[in-house]
């Protein structure tokens, strides 16, 4: 499935804004990406397996609240950085 990568994380993906990944759950997809792009996961998921504040992950058009969401092959995942900062 497609995973859209925000600019802040493209230093991990070789500047790719879109990568392919497999997994039955959001957790599996992020683990796979972390294996390929070490460090990627911890920048957006904390050590208690919660999505960090200011990070939003959408599965298609639905906001994911945790990593246990079951995925299908045609799903699209978008990782977003919430508008904040200064």
């Amino acid at each position: 499935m497609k995973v859209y990568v925000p600019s802040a994380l493209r230093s991990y993906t070789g500047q790719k804004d879109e990568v392919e990944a497999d997994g039955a759950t959001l957790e599996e997809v992020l683990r796979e990406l972390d294996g390929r792009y070490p460090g990627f996961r911890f920048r957006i998921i904390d050590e208690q397996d919660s999505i960090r504040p200011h990070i939003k992950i959408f599965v298609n058009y639905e906001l994911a609240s945790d990593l246990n969401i079951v995925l299908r092959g045609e799903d699209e995942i978008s990782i977003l950085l919430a508008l904040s900062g200064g």
Partner: protein
Amino acid sequence: MEKVDSLTSKTSANHKPGKGPLALLIATRKGAFILRGGKNRNKWKLSEPIFLGHMVHHIVQDPRDRQTILVACRTGHLGPTVFRSTDFGKTWAEAGTPPAFLKAAEGETGRVLDHVFWLTPGHASEPGVWYAGSSPQGLFRSEDGGANWEGVPGFNDHPMRPAWTGGASDGTPDGPKLHSILIDPRDPNHMYLGMSMGGVFESTDRGADWKPLNKGCAADFIPVPDPEYGHDPHCVRLHPLKPDRLYQQNHCGIYRMERDEGEWVRIGDNMPKDVGDIGFPMVVHPRDPDKAWVFPMDGTTVWPRTSPDGKPAAYVTRNAGKSWKRLDKGLPTKHAWLTVKRQAMAADTHQPLGIYFGTTSGEVWGSTNEGKKWESLARHLPHVYAVEVAEHLK
């Protein structure tokens, strides 16, 4: 180790003055910078930003190999991590396992590391060992030059740690911090650390156990008289030649401790009353245990934490705190409402000693004569969090 016995002993053959070019490692709210000085500590040249946009809390050289630099950073959105360079900043790699708390057992609430705040290279006899302090307060150790980190369970899992550190809101506005990780140069098992909030703590077994070390230190924001812990050290320093002498710039004044006495003495009472003895940073002279510098701030009313009366100045003691002298030549004489944070003042080892500080207004100042005269070395940087000196560059 060469012993320094008397209160006024001055030098050691093992700590000769440094020579040659040096660099300032500058951590800011929007990235890191390296400010290289020439052979005579002049002609300063600023690097391009490193990790532009990252909140860099500390950037530190490894004095054991001189080429390794670690950077503690995060962004406003992305979680905390550590980057390392083994070629003095030419190339960088992220730690494979950055500092993080352990995942909590099912049904329990675990701690989440917000940022790595402090980095300390380990003892000279332990190449590759580093320590990191975090917000909220945690202690982490790397055995491989910062590539991988683990929590120090003797602190992070200490049964008293929740009481010592308080809650997430019991600390500085941007999070309670563990800082001032100090290694006794005579013994890698003997360590100190400071916590805002929490106080000063000591370990004699390489971090397996810790004990509060706050006797004599005020904590006038706590209703408990003479509490054992809960103090607010802003910056703690250990003298490298006289490791049983500690200095501390605390939320409640400036202190010195002779470890065998085990009690903090408020040497800030000897500061001018209209300036007071509140501030963040403190720096010691590497060859003279009696010399130390502070940078006072306004700790009155609502605690503006700016230069008192808008007139910034460092103060030096040359007699272990019996008296203090104002050092403001070259600094703005008015309307300078800046702050120097706890990690943002450092000394080199040259003769005469160089002192450097960075400000919340993005300036870096330096003196090559122990603070007698200051010069602007860099301006228009982001809010400076930390300044460290890197010497003996290859």
